């Protein structure tokens, strides 16, 4: 390990040392310290003298890895800012919370930067391990404990599948390096069947983490029970990291026998997620099923298998991530000591109580549904056109159909917001951190919808 390698690892080291040292920071400053560490890592990733840094054996330090690290670090900082008031009303231990969020960001960064099957496993496990605790962080909440258990058990199964798949791929190809394993499998390695079986198992584990349709059953319960800021990080960051890995370093679409599997996963996610979201009356459960649908769209980007599709996928991830984090952040900012306003009935008349937050929630849901002036529309546009170019017409038709149906379940809570309601306000005004995060997400959604050129160019510059 040379000095250059240490420089290349510096952002990751900052995240790791931050997550250890925040445990010794006093309760009041811990979350702010966590935000500072995450932002420092994000800045260090683009520090000029790091551009000469060399690759380390397990994680790459390319532009894509750094861009992803910046994205996850910003999501982590947003989670810390959003949970400040939420934490105070529920007596969370702030140092542990900040440490786990930072460690989670560390895991996501390792995962999306991994160049080897070993670091893939390490990153996924580091991320998931932190989530196991974060989801059940509210110890007084029984649904939180249930959610923790429901994430833990599928998580163990997914880890086992992943480890077994990695073992099979290694047995067939004789190397852990991701690009070599994919290339050898495409070329038809000596034990082609074994390699394909291994990749299928890895795909199943990834589908568990990204909650694609046959493997999505944990999603609604976990989102409902987890603290709202954590659910936001889970919905945007963990799924984003998994898809960043698929887009950059594991182009599964190159392996021809896996394409039908990916297409079935995408189609099932769109169909099941859409129809399961229709009858929901709980905002967090509805967002959970909608995330299943959005992950189905993301599989389209993986299926295209070329640069344009990958760029469209990253753009879609950014727009989906901003909307999701802000939606869960709004739930957190609207929740008082008695609980989160999860049911649509609790949102009734929000427009009269706090018009800004009602307007923002409307905007977020419209963006997720894909209404024109917002980022969601632009994301779907570039993504679906890339998939059309790659020749997946029936999947794009299915996606258009499911986003048409999705308007119904996204607009149901919006209608409730503007009704004159009787529900009493349980929450105070938003604090500075919440305003900053929610406002930034709103601005990103509007800019990415109206003038997406700069963001698309930035993504095109980093996607390998």
């Amino acid at each position, binding site marked *: *390990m040379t000095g250059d390698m240490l420089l290349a690892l510096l952002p990751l080291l900052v995240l790791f040392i931050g997550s*250890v040292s925040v*445990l*010794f920071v006093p309760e009041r400053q811990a979350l702010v310290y966590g935000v500072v560490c995450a932002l420092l890592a994000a800045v260090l990733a683009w520090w000029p003298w790091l551009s000469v840094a060399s690759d380390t054996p397990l994680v790459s330090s390319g532009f894509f890895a750094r861009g992803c690290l910046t994205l996850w670090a910003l999501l982590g900082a947003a989670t810390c800012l959003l949970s400040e008031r939420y934490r105070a009303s529920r007596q969370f231990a702030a140092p542990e919370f900040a440490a786990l969020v930072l460690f989670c960001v560390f895991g996501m960064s390792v995962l999306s930067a991994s160049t080897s099957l070993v670091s893939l496993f390490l990153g996924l496990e580091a991320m998931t391990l932190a989530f196991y605790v974060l989801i059940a962080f509210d110890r007084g909440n029984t649904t939180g404990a249930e959610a923790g258990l429901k994430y833990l058990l599928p998580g163990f199964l997914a880890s086992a599948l992943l480890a077994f798949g990695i073992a099979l791929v290694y047995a067939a190809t004789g190397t852990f390096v991701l690009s070599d394993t994919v290339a050898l499998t495409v070329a038809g390695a000596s034990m082609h069947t074994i390699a394909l079986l291994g990749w299928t198992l890895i795909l199943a584990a990834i589908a568990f983490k990204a909650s694609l349709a046959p493997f999505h059953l944990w999603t609604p319960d976990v989102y409902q029970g987890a603290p709202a800021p954590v659910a936001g990080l889970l919905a945007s960051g963990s799924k984003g990291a998994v898809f960043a890995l698929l887009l950059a370093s594991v182009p599964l679409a190159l392996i021809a026998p896996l394409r039908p599997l990916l297409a079935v996963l995408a189609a099932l996610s769109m169909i099941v997620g859409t129809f399961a979201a229709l009858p929901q009356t709980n905002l967090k459960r509805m967002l959970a099923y909608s995330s299943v649908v959005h992950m189905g769209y993301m599989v389209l980007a993986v299926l295209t298998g070329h640069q344009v599709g990958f760029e469209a996928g990253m753009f879609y991830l950014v727009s989906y991530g901003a909307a999701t984090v802000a939606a869960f952040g709004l739930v957190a900012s609207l929740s008082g000591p008695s609980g989160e306003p999860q049911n649509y009935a609790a949102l009734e008349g929000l427009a009269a109580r706090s018009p800004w937050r009602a307007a923002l929630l409307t905007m977020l849901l419209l963006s997720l549904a894909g209404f024109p002036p917002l980022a969601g529309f632009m994301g779907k546009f570039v993504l679906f056109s890339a998939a059309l170019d790659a020749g997946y017409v029936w999947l794009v038709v299915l996606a258009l159909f499911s986003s048409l149906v999705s308007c119904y379940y996204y607009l149901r809570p919006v209608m409730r917001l503007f009704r004159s309601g009787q529900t009493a306000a349980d929450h105070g005004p938003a604090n500075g951190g919440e305003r900053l995060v929610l406002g930034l997400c709103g601005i990103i959604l509007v800019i990415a919808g109206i003038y997406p050129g700069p963001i698309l160019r930035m993504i095109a510059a980093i996607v390998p």
Partner: protein
Amino acid sequence: MASENISTEQLAGLDALMSPLGWDLVAFALYVGLACTIVGSLLLAARFLGHRTRSPLKGQPYECGVEPSGPARPGYPVPFYLTAIFFVVFDVEVAFIASWAVAYDLLGWQGLAQIAFFIITLLIALFYLWRRGALDWGPQRR
């Protein structure tokens, strides 16, 4: 002579039917059947031939000759559980340190620096546990 011929022909026919693996499986099945028969017949013989006594004294658990006292499921103090968990955590880390120790001369100063980083991280974790009062034995803290 004729009968010998027939028997070898039959054997050859059986060999053609069953690969060497098949013969191995037959032998294995015979072995399993024999083992089960012996164990089962011994157990049955003990049941029918042995003589049984039942008394409350015989029903008691044998605790090194000392008469048992108290319930069989006492509430363990929580520090016991915590200490057990910490032991497991730090014990697993020994596996990593041992894997460095067997190759320390090959890994050189770089390996030493890496394992030092690892051990220092563990030490910080230990300090954290200490500060949180997780190592204080007794119910008054926490």
